[in-house]
């Protein structure tokens, strides 16, 4: 039974991480599904969310579990502005131009943060960090559990918003057919601006929730950017429930890889899966592609 507890522990840890991954990936899947934009600035949005939450905590003494909401609102605004000011002006057929544009936005965000806050690593310093929930040999870190719970709620909220509201229906109509949606009276630019903002807000909130359990530096988003590409492709590009499932799966896979092969190989496994999915089943493993 020696193997049993580490194994269960790794799976539980994986699920805790996976919920945050899922939230990040849902944001990207939403943007891709509605606008067909591969958003290279997604990691930068996450990083901005982390920094916003961190600044609120350090200088305003706002609890990060409240601060992440403010970060989400801020990122919603940033996302909507990026859409209205930049993305909107690029015709979507020039998909490489949009990739370059989001890359540019990402470079600007990361380097502005670098310029303002420096390249130092930061970590939140608050009492909850050392607390653990124990059940026999299994122990779960308290901030992880709280972040997990909130991320699940946020992901569920996003899902309900997209599937059950009139706005979500408009966004899905654009995803299905961007030509006929405006003919049905949908204000395509407004809906897309809100969608882009929502995607950015999901990344920003995930960043805020990640802050208590992770550390912070200007380029932190890069890693999550690549991972969210993987999750969105795995989930079937554009399917938000698929992306969420892929996020959970990826969390567990990484955790198990770390347990058996060592931490440094977890990312390698990620990218090997990425290549396999891309070459064998580019339409995704989880869920069908909704478009």
């Amino acid at each position, binding site marked *: 039974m020696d193997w049993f507890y580490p194994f269960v522990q790794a799976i539980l840890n994986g699920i805790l991480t996976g919920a945050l991954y899922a939230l990040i990936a849902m944001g990207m899947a939403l943007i891709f599904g509605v*606008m*067909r934009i*591969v958003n290279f600035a997604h990691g930068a949005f996450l990083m901005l969310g982390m920094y916003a939450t961190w600044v609120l905590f350090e200088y305003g003494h706002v609890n990060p579990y409240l601060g992440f909401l403010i970060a989400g609102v801020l990122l919603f605004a940033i996302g909507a502005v990026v859409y209205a000011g*930049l993305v909107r*002006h*690029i*015709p*979507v*057929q*020039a*998909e*490489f*131009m949009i*990739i*370059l*544009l989001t*890359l*540019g*936005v*990402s*470079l*600007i*965000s*990361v*380097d*502005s943060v*670098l*310029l303002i806050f420096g*390249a130092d690593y930061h970590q939140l310093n608050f009492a909850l960090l050392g607390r653990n929930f124990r059940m026999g040999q299994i122990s779960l870190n308290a901030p992880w559990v709280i972040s997990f719970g909130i991320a699940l709620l946020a992901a569920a909220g996003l899902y309900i918003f997209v599937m059950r509201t009139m706005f979500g229906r408009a966004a899905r109509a*654009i995803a299905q*057919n*961007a*030509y006929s*949606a*405006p*003919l049905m009276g949908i204000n*395509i630019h407004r809906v897309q601006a809100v969608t882009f903002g929502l995607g950015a807000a999901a990344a920003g909130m995930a960043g805020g929730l990640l802050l208590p359990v992770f550390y912070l530096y200007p380029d932190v988003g*890069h890693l999550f950017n*690549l991972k969210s*590409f*993987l999750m969105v*492709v795995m989930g079937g*590009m554009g399917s938000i429930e698929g992306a969420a499932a892929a996020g959970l799966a990826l969390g567990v896979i990484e955790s198990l890889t770390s347990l058996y092969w060592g931490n*440094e*190989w977890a*990312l*390698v496994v990620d*990218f*090997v899966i*990425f*290549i396999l999915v*891309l*070459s064998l089943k*580019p*339409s995704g493993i989880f869920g069908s*592609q909704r*478009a």
Partner: protein
Amino acid sequence: MKRPQVMIGAVIFLVALLIPVFLRNDYFLQVIFRLFLFASLGLAWNLVGGYAGQLSLGHAAYFGVGAYGLALLSPSISPLPAIVAGVVLAMISALIIGSVSFRLRGPYFCLATIAFTEVLRLIAKNLPNVTGGDVGTPVPSLFPRNTMVSFYYACVGLTIVAFALSYWVERSRFGYYLMAIREDEDTALSVGVNTARVKLWALLLSAAISALAGALYASLFLFIVPDQMFGVEVSVEIAILPMLGGAGTLLGPLVGSLVLETASEVFKNIFKEAHLLIYGVLVVLVVLFLPEGIVGTLMRKLSWFKSAPPTPFASTPSPGPVEESKRVPLPQPTSE
């Protein structure tokens, strides 16, 4: 009819070859070395990304394999064969990467090239016994006295070779195949272009030049670490230079490197580590205002400059009457 671009290119190279005669300042030579190094990388990228229209964000893979090939093999075989081995290894990686990625289109292709490069970076990091891991590995010097001038001439030479190769590609049947693929891959396929093979050949040429550039770069600094060679920033820089200058034009990579490397050198002193900020701003400005790049836009505006085939990535007019949306769903991923 490419005269203006070839002439301007020739003038730039002539000036570059004369610079060390008058200027023996190692700092300036190193700045210009870097400029030409990235120009050669940009020219290499341009074969795949410009003429064939395949947006690769993974050219650091070949750059890094060339460098690591030189570093790791030269103890057992001498440096020159090690460079050749590095080039061969880079071409083998290109064969593997290309045969998987070229089946994908649009953003999927782009993501696949990133994924492969990341795998190489992580392997270089995670095998400290072989590659020195994060600590890095020493690289032998290629030139006996290791002077900046010899590296400088080698780099300008490599850029001239890459430029000549691009010139040949632009005028050859092979080049027209590439441009046909860029304009419409399905049509190219249907008129009998073996698109898979043509794209792969372009990538092999591109990888060989990138590997040579990598070896040169590594040998100048005598020491390399994985993030410096395989980092995504390197891939992004390699792709951005020619796009800024004008993807799919002969002179584009050269002009892009001239503008971007100069800007980055100037801003390095002002912004310190954050000098990539200027990259971001330039990229956004180019995408918004010069979607065909500097050379591409000049070619359209100035009649005497006009000559070349149409540039890629410029927006094609919207097919339908729905001007308001301008949004067309992306084709489904195809894996023929």
